[in-house]
């Protein structure tokens, strides 16, 4: 794991940052459990907005969008 300071400020970090990745993933699963499709979509939208503002960097957002849009396996 590299330290955050080693990265350029406007570079999307894809190396592991979480000390407990399983727990982080399960936080998201738990958040959606029991929700309808529509409620889940609303939750995801709010999460994306909150985290986007937390990141606070359009260049990072652009890279995240690009990576997220890439089709599976590409």
């Amino acid at each position, binding site marked *: 794991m590299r330290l955050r300071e080693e990265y350029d400020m406007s570079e999307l970090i894809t190396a592991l940052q979480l000390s407990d990745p399983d727990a982080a993933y399960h936080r998201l699963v738990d958040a959606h459990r029991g929700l309808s499709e529509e409620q889940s*979509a*609303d939750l995801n*939208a*709010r999460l*994306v907005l*909150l985290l986007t503002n937390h990141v606070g960097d359009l260049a990072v957002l652009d890279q995240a969008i690009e990576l997220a849009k890439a089709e599976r396996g590409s």
Partner: protein
Amino acid sequence: MAATGSGGPAAAGIGVSGDATMGAGARKALYQFGYARSRDQDAFEATGEAVRHPVVVVGAGPVGMTLAVDLALRGQPVVILDDADRIGEGSRAICFAQRTLEIWDRLGVAAPMVEKGVTWQVGKNFLRDDLVYKFDLLPEDGHKMPAFINLQQYYAELFLVERIAELPLIDLRWNNKVTAIESPGDGKAVTLTIETPEGTYPLKADWLIACDGARSPLRDMMGLEFRGEVFDDRFLIADVKMAADYPAERWFWFDPPFHAGQSALLHKQPDDVWRIDLQLGPDADPEVEQRPENVIPRIKRMLGHDNFELEWVSLYSFQCRRIDRFIHDRVIFCGDSAHQVSPFGARGANSGVQDAENLAWKLDLLLKGEADDALLETYDAERSFAADENIGHSTRSTDFISPKSEMEHTLRNAVLDLAAKTEFARSMVNSGRLSKATTYDTPLSTPDSATFSGVARLGAPVPDAPLKRVDGSPTWLHDELDQGFTVLHVANGAAPNAVEGAALRIIGAELLDEAGQFRRRFDATPGATFVIRPDQHLVARFRHFDAAKVTEAIARAKGRADAAA
């Protein structure tokens, strides 16, 4: 509406493309002007030759008339042709921004507009019943012109027509419809065919300025593509007359109780007229929705009563688009004919008036032989940039108000939900980002060689400031600027006596900055020197006066490429 509120103003500086133009309250034309035969028609009948004019403007709307007045005040004769003989129809622009008012003030026509208009500066966005975001467009005083006024477009046009009547250099011809244009290119004059109640006559124009609106017939005659984005949602725009004591604020609702799932807007105009704008969705039938029996219940739900009269109703869809180039040899497009935006943000009429002011001084210098096509090209560059900026803001606003897919809707609603809890989301709520003057990144500006703080920005119109003359009488910075170039110098012992090619104003000698607002807004230290274009944009600033640098900055601002060296 108090309980539920009613919705805001669609600022509408629009060249809206209407699905339908007639409304329930179809208002009679308010001001009728007569057709009068011109000398050019006599001359054509006598000689068979078309009379030639240096500048012909097509379209007597706010943009065409602003351009004509500006040119006339610079000594240029202008013919304006308009295909109608009246003003006052339609639900059109109502919000006029500070920069537009400053331009009109320079042209001597702002005073009646501000007096008649409703001055406002606060906007409120509601989600359902809750206030989620409030903005104040003029948090600081010390400007001659207000942040915004609301004024029916027909009043703005009337005051411009009255101003034109005082200017013998302007020949305004009603009922003169251009039906054909021949533009041979290579800088040769354009020939127009003009239809009047007495038949047709031709006219030649060294420069033809197309200010004929969003549906510009000249643009079609020239075969120019009007490219951009079209929005499917339909909006009902109504002007209603009622006595109400709601404040003069722009109120905008997302998903209001009286109009579930859609947006609504309410804004005050003079004469107890209120602009109401209701989003109807993409499937609304224009013909059906404009019937009074359908309109009145909608507005009644919003207002909570039916004690109002419909002045005008129409249904619109919006587009954001532009032509690629604003200059086609001797034909220049200005205002909505060149670029069209949705009304959210009041960027239509306001940007058109700013087009006109950008063009006027450049065309004047060209006609006087003090500049060449290089200066004129900067009209295209600067105002294309402005058009893209306005289209960008307008598109974002319209996308926010009118999401295009389920997921866009989900995202938009997520912003609204978070707005109640978080500051960042409040700033994302977008019911229209209101028109501001564009800051030009332009080769006409001399790059800063020193650092300046303050709100004055290179390439932007200079901020106004209250000043005093030496006799103690109050004045405004904008009132002290020249129609040509102005050099502002802050006294610092030995002041320059004069500057070649510009009017010199010395702050601290003939003009006093007692309130300190000039100093703060310009970061004006002793000796600081500011060079200001005829359209009041700042083109150069220095910490100390240097005659050679000032002269070079003025030459550069006139498009003299060799001055850039």
